[in-house]
């Protein structure tokens, strides 16, 4: 425990106070929330920012001369500026607001890839991907006759790097890769991979859904062409997300959807599209959600991403150690480089049964295939139990988890 107390630095440990949902009883036990990889809880500042906006500033954006419309536009565009500086994009034109990672990836598949793919071209992904970084590529491959190539992983849940490089050939038209696996927690070695892809002229999309909430992100130093993430996994509202894209690429891409806001001029002879990033934002956006996302970024910045990464890293080590001591446990996902996720199974207890027994003791985890069925197939399981960490978790949460798992073992003994 002494080692762990170090990680509970004042600010990070205190964060827990800021999240009202964490302070409730579930099934007559104090809630232990270990499902932030699916969706994170929101701090009061986010909840209040959304409520204040709804109460006082709401109007449509970019469309009115009246005061409320100005306020709404300022709040919405202000959030875009925050996102730009949070991930260090070089221009606000590179920040496209979407409904989430899923939409961001589909946008790239349809707008960037589809027009440039010919039969025989390849899109390279990895065996670790979330379904939302698989299916959009399957669709565009079906539309164009291109081929989806999948780089293999090893039994620790790491990318097989030699095999990966042998598949990274100059007929690959896009590499789409997760920064962090949501099912296993594996952190992919993007600092090595991206320069290698770029040297072959291959554009790179990073699925950052599980990266942004847990570590500092700098898209310029990372060197990727596209970076996709979701607001609800970074303590913001659902229905918000971001696609970062390099300006030169976004500029050359056709619009994804047509409608209001994405145009400068419409006539029946033709339409002039709006400038970046509005060209990709058709229709009235999720204004209140984006305002909340801006507040979430303020919150994360005030805590500090490096501190968060350090806190979660130490807590993950404690989680892996404690779970590893449970008799009959099988830890799934034991990569050398990991972020705060641990999948596991215990004895022959089905993950769904584990989930019910843990929930009954107030411990919320995710069970099932985690939208990563190929990963489950690789490990020969239909699903796993998964505990995922966020800045507000602490050692006591881990202890409660382990206690609850022991209880499940007793019931199934």
């Amino acid at each position: 425990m002494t080692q762990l107390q170090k990680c509970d630095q004042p600010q990070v440990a205190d964060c827990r106070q800021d999240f009202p949902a964490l302070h409730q009883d579930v099934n007559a036990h104090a809630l232990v929330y270990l499902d932030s990889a699916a969706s994170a809880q929101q701090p009061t500042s986010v909840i209040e920012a959304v409520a204040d906006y709804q109460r006082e500033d709401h109007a449509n954006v970019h469309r009115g001369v009246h005061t409320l419309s100005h306020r709404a536009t300022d709040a919405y565009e202000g959030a875009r500026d925050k996102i730009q500086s949070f991930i260090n994009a070089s221009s606000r034109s590179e920040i496209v607001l979407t409904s989430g990672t899923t939409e961001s990836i589909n946008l790239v598949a349809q707008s960037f890839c589809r027009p440039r793919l010919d039969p025989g071209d390849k899109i390279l992904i990895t065996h670790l991907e979330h379904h939302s970084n698989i299916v959009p590529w399957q669709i565009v491959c079906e539309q164009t006759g291109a081929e989806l190539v999948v780089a293999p992983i090893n039994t620790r849940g790491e990318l097989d790097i030699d095999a990966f490089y042998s598949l990274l050939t100059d007929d690959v038209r896009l590499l789409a890769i997760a920064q962090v696996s949501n099912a296993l927690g594996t952190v992919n070695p993007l600092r090595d991979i991206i320069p290698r892809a770029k040297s072959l002229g291959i554009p790179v999309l990073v699925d950052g859904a599980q990266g942004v909430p847990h570590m500092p992100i700098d898209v310029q130093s990372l060197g990727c062409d596209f970076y996709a993430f979701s607001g609800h996994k970074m303590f913001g509202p659902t229905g918000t997300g971001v696609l970062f894209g390099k300006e030169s690429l976004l500029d050359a891409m056709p619009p994804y959807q047509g409608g209001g806001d994405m145009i400068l001029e419409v006539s029946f002879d033709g339409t002039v599209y709006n400038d970046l990033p509005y060209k990709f934002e058709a229709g009235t956006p999720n204004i209140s959600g984006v305002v909340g996302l801006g507040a979430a970024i303020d919150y994360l910045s005030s805590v500090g991403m490096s501190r968060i990464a350090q806190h979660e890293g130490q807590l993950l080590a404690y989680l892996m150690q404690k779970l590893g001591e449970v008799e009959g446990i099988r830890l799934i996902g034991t990569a050398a480089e990991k972020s705060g996720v641990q999948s596991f199974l215990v004895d022959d207890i089905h993950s769904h049964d584990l989930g019910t027994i843990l929930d009954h003791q107030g411990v919320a985890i995710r069970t099932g295939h985690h939208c990563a069925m190929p990963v489950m197939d690789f490990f020969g399981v239909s699903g796993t139990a998964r505990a995922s960490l966020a800045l507000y978790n602490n050692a006591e949460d881990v202890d409660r988890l382990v206690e609850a798992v022991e209880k499940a073992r007793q019931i199934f003994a």
Partner: protein
Amino acid sequence: MNAVDLHSGDDLRELYRELILDHARNPRHFGKIDHPTHTAEGINPLCGDKLRLSVRVDRHGNIADASFEGSGCAISVASASLLTDMIIGVPVAQALTCFDIVTQRLTAPDVDHERDIGIDLSKIKALDGVREFPSRVKCATLAWHALRSAMHGQTAPVSTE
């Protein structure tokens, strides 16, 4: 342990009764049967349960044999095991009445389920603990939905989602 813990432990023990755990660990009629006349797949995408139920109906309309394959949580496997145990030797019409009784028993506990249809329903009472866990009712009824769809000759997998 305080009173709350004891209480919550009881609910879990009700859900995972000995009979349920026994059928989950040693499922009866697990595997294939010869010459099935009706089969159906049941899928519960939430937890990845996937069962294939096979039934052979003889020319008198009786269920001569039944089995299931696949994998799932303790509740869905135990329920499938209990189902096959119960329906072998029973006329198809009665087995389908059984479906109604089981699904009502788990979802509308106030109805009188004790009516006599000539099948021993005592074992199915082992599933009663599921009522306290609404998210698990789908697991408990999966095999029963598969039975009904098999008997109605549906070929697409049934889903309890």
